[in-house]
């Protein structure tokens, strides 16, 4: 890593901490429902809405009631997003006259946006009407983010409560988080984006004539819409020429803001944050990266304050930051090293005074290697999935880092809410083993970790690896799975593994080489996304309920301290061992062997 990359990393982490600290305080107020006096008019509006909806805001819910409300709310979201896509052809705000999206793609997209994954089997500007983008996708960007946040709030309440039957009221939580956290932040951020050149309009797409005629190569698709392959399994390329370019338009800024803040990641355009209308300047690039981690980091501060011991929050944050920094260093180093195959072709990848050097394949010239590497680590640490470069074109180990960050369970900052509750699951696991090692039955934050908690923890850590590994296994066996592969060999395996990892962990980024818009992948990945999301949320809520019902044990000098450097390293160790051991064989057959074949061919 060169100096510029280091400066970028350090200033990123610094600014992040400065911004997320006050937001953490505000999140405590929202979670506890204790607002400053100037909020009174909003609150009376809020109460009016509850009266209309027939919600009693004071009534606490047990975990089952909370979980049912949450799953039903999200299931209705799937129906709404599905219906809007299928009906978009006859609905307004469709200047390009986009036809109804296919059934399997609509289903996949509906599940994808509701689960905060934002895996996109489609290309935004070629598929979705403005209405669908705004009313279906952007709305779910808000609600799925709010869902993640309320789950972690419920879990933290479980730690704080003493012998309580309630973990809060889902309707109240989801309303407050959306209205008092996500909406105002998005509004401010969207205005900033517009000021930098992100578009916000309802105009039809604009055709422009380019200054010169462009020739480009693209894979030829067969009649089935899948890429055709030659005898060696390589895609058949065709050369095209054009002097016309269509500029896609739309209400981008409003959707871009929540896409980052809610760690959703679903781009308005197919190119996502590599598109100049989504991410026009290095400044927007930096602020977009900040906005991905803003709420996840603030939630950690909220956690520390709510449990009455800010050091607990700092410990979790330290573990996250340590893993994150290492990931950034690895990915940046790998990308700056360049690619020996490109060197063989005569490309100059050396670092010099005039150029940063490294593997520029698949990267935006506006951002370069260092910023793209940082963006890649951030977007996969958090379950965002927005990209400003193509992960598929990274070096093998550079691409393995995003893969691994997702496989750890999206706990390094992670998605809004999901990252913290995932990390707390690992913390529970760490104290369970560490607590035994000091001769006490384990407890975390004063709550005994017993059989029921271990059951729920086990389910939560089992669900995703099973979905990812089994999904990838089915895909490599099925012909329908293998046809989507653009690159033969180990990289093809990496692409499939990446797709299921991204879906199962609700990230949504892709090794774009895989053509995943087929009924097979749309269905398989939708299943992985749904269960990867709610298969974890439900046990976490169950644990919140059982923790809330427990007494809070007194802290003595015999209690395992969960705030020092020792615990931080234990937590990191647990995340790496338990999170990663499952994936070692798969990684060996994908990126690891790719790396060895690239650098040490036999």
């Amino acid at each position: 890593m060169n100096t510029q990359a280091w400066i970028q990393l350090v200033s990123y982490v610094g600014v992040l901490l400065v911004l997320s600290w006050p937001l953490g305080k505000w999140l405590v107020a929202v979670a506890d429902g204790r607002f400053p006096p100037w909020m009174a008019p909003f609150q009376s509006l809020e109460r009016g809405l509850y009266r209309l909806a027939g919600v009693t805001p004071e009534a606490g819910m047990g975990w089952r009631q909370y979980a049912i409300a949450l799953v039903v709310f999200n299931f209705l979201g799937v129906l709404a997003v599905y219906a809007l896509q299928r009906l978009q052809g006859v609905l307004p705000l469709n200047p390009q006259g986009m036809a109804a999206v296919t059934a399997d793609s609509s289903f996949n997209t509906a599940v994808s946006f509701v689960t905060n994954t934002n895996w996109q089997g489609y290309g935004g500007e070629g598929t979705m009407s403005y209405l669908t983008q705004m009313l279906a996708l952007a709305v779910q960007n808000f609600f799925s983010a709010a869902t993640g946040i309320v789950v972690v709030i419920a879990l933290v309440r479980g730690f704080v409560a003493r012998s309580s039957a309630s973990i809060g009221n889902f309707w109240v939580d989801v309303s407050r988080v959306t209205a008092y956290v996500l909406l105002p932040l998005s509004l401010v951020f969207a205005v900033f984006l517009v000021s930098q050149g992100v578009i916000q309009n309802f105009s039809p797409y604009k055709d422009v004539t380019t200054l010169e005629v462009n020739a480009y190569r693209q894979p030829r698709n067969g009649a089935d819409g899948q890429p055709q392959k030659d005898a060696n399994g390589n895609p058949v390329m065709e050369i095209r020429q054009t002097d016309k370019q269509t500029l896609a338009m739309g209400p981008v800024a409003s959707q871009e803001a929540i896409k980052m803040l809610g760690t959703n990641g679903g781009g308005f355009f197919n190119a996502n944050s590599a598109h100049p209308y989504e991410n026009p300047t290095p400044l927007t690039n930096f602020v977009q990266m900040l906005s991905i981690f803003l709420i996840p980091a603030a939630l950690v501060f909220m956690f520390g304050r709510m449990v009455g011991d800010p050091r607990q929050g700092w410990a979790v944050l330290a573990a996250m930051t340590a893993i994150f920094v290492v990931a950034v260093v690895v990915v940046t180093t790998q990308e700056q090293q360049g690619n020996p195959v490109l060197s063989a072709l005569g490309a100059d990848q050396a670092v010099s005074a005039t150029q940063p050097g490294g593997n520029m394949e698949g990267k935006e010239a506006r951002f370069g290697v260092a910023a793209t590497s940082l963006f890649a680590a951030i977007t996969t640490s958090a379950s965002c999935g927005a990209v400003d470069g193509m992960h598929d074109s990274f070096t093998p180990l550079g691409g393995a880092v995003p893969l691994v960050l997702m496989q750890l369970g999206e706990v390094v900052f992670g998605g809004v809410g999901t990252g913290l509750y995932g990390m707390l699951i690992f913390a529970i696991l760490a104290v369970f083993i560490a607590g035994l090692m000091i001769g006490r039955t384990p407890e975390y934050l004063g709550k005994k970790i017993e059989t029921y908690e271990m059951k729920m923890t086990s389910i939560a850590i089992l669900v995703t690896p099973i979905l990812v590994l089994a999904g990838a296994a089915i895909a490599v066996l099925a012909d329908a799975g293998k046809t989507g592969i653009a690159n033969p060999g180990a990289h093809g395996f990496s692409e499939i593994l990446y797709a299921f990892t991204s879906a199962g962990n609700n990230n949504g980024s892709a090794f774009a080489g895989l053509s995943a818009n087929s009924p097979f992948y749309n269905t398989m990945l939708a299943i992985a996304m749904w269960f990867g999301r709610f298969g974890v949320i439900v046990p976490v809520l169950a644990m919140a309920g059982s923790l809330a019902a427990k007494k809070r044990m007194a802290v003595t000098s015999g209690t395992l301290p969960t705030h020092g450097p020792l615990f931080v390293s234990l937590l990191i160790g647990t995340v790496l061992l338990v999170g990663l051991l499952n994936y070692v064989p798969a990684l060996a057959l994908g990126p690891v062997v790719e790396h060895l074949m690239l650098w040490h061919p036999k």
Partner: protein
Amino acid sequence: MTTAKTFSLFDPVLVKPAIASAFGKLDPRVQWRNPVMFVVYIGSLLTTIVWVQALGAQGEAPPGFILAIALSLWFTVLFANFAEALAEGRSKAQASSLRSMKRKVIAKQLEKPLHGSSWHPQEADELRKGAVVLVEAGDVIPLDGEVIEGVASVDESAITGESAPVIRESGGDFASVTGGTRVLSDWLVVRVGVNPGESFLDRMIAMVEGAKRQKTPNEIALTILLVALTIVFLVVTVTLLPYSIFSVEANKAGTPVSVTALIALLVCLIPTTIGALLSAIGVAGMSRMMGANVIATSGRAVEAAGDVDVLLLDKTGTITLGNRQASAFVPARGVSERTLADAAQFASMADETPEGRSIAVLAKQTFDLRERDLSSHKTTFVAFTAQTRMSGVDIEGDDGTVRALRKGAGDAIRKHVEALGGSFPVDVQNSTDDIARKGSTPLVVCDGSWVLGVVELKDIVKGGLKERFPELRRMGIKTVMITGDNRLTAAAIAAEAGVDDFLAEATPEAKLQMIRDYQADGRLVAMTGDGTNDAPALAQADVAVAMNTGTQAAKEAGNMVDLDSNPTKLLEIVETGKQLLMTRGSLTTFSIANDVSKYFAIIPAMFVTTYPELGALNVMRLATPSSAILSAVIFNAIVIVFLIPLALTGVRYRAIGAAALLRRNVLIYGVGGLIVPFIGIKVLDLLLVALHIV
């Protein structure tokens, strides 16, 4: 235990039956109870079948290799069985000494519940709760019960290991008798308190043998985690076959992985080390409690002992020696200390109580006053009565005058001298108050109506105890002294002993309330007790140790019984509980950390035919793919044997604070668990090659 024979770890007496039992436990119904080992068991069966197939020349790998893997897997299962059998064997040996006491006893069942009524012989097994039996000198008490008439000395050495006989009598705290003990003198009429098979002895045997051993809550929670890891690794290995087939197709080289290699990988990855030793650790924990002469009535109690954060300790007998001792003479104005000592010694001459003896001893030590030969004087001893609350001696001098020496509590002596027309000096009253304030007991001595001064009787804190309280504090355990004394006295002794807190003027209700308050505060409370009035508090406490000398009610209420009736034992009990949990945690960490090296051994070996580049991951430079896989599997099996001693003796507890202890154990078992298998697998690989096995 009288016969608490200490066995060396691998005593042949225990090892032989354990080996036999290891094979006996191959029954699938037994294996099913341990999910992790059950997977290994299935794996062993599968590889054996694959081997038989390979013999028919249909094999996926050379039959020799498959056989070697299959055998290693079978040994993994056998080693786990052996560990469990060995732990159970040790317990059984302890139990059999108990059982030997359970020989057939013919009881003398009384027709009516009083001494002298006619009796008929009845087998102890036929007796029911409520029956009344007569036990005479030389008879064995048939079942647990309560003495309703009579006094007798009883030999309880079989249960307690204490050879001195104890007195059992009707009424009060010494009315409970235990079946299997023997009356040495006199007789007792006993009402049987339990049905046959439910007696204390029966429960002890059942607990110790592990027949009734149920998994404890923490053991269940850990098992769930181990099962979860097993499931995940099962998915990892099962999906590896399609991945491998795909890779072979994609790279057009090599062959897909063999089922044998996949099973080998699975067994290496799942937490077999802790899975194999988990139940042995539990049995050994109970057995260690036995070794300390403590019988836990549930494994849950042993586990809870590790969590205790408040210890309630009775002052008398636990913190202080049972009796107060004279520590100073404080004379009245105008009286020499020697005169006071002389008079006090005289007054205590006939006082055989430990307090009285200690006065005589102190006088002798400080002024070399020897005990007088009293036969030369005409003396009359005045015994202590509840009315006078004084004791002493009347000495008739040669001239016929009578010296009336008395000692007693301040107010009793005041009444006495004022009745004789004397007065109670102010300075003596002051010294009395001072001594009381220090927590000691003042005894005033007078000669007729002349008050000579005060003897200070002091509570003596037990030797070695003061050092243990800071140790407990470092363990995060708060100590609370319970005493019937007033606050002043209690505070002084608490300060001297160094306990954290005290409860003065303790009534059973106050004790119970205190335990509830601590529990409401989120703390786990341990206490010891012996009297019937302790029973409610014992029942409320999380860890309740009843003294074996205590009443039946106390024993029923507690969840442990200390056969030595030594209240200080609580400290050992806590340590044993911690040891049990630490052993589980450390071996779990070790087991999971081991996986890293096994990946490095097996992954390159599995895929090297498809991707020769993966040979770069063979950091141990293992000779061949077969030797790599075999070494990993063999290491996985023999590490169980190497860890049996640790599982049985437990990881040692050190009172160095939670953080330091954790750092230490993480370094040893976590980091050690990462490194050790690299070395072990390499060594095994070298051996296999040297022996031309692969």
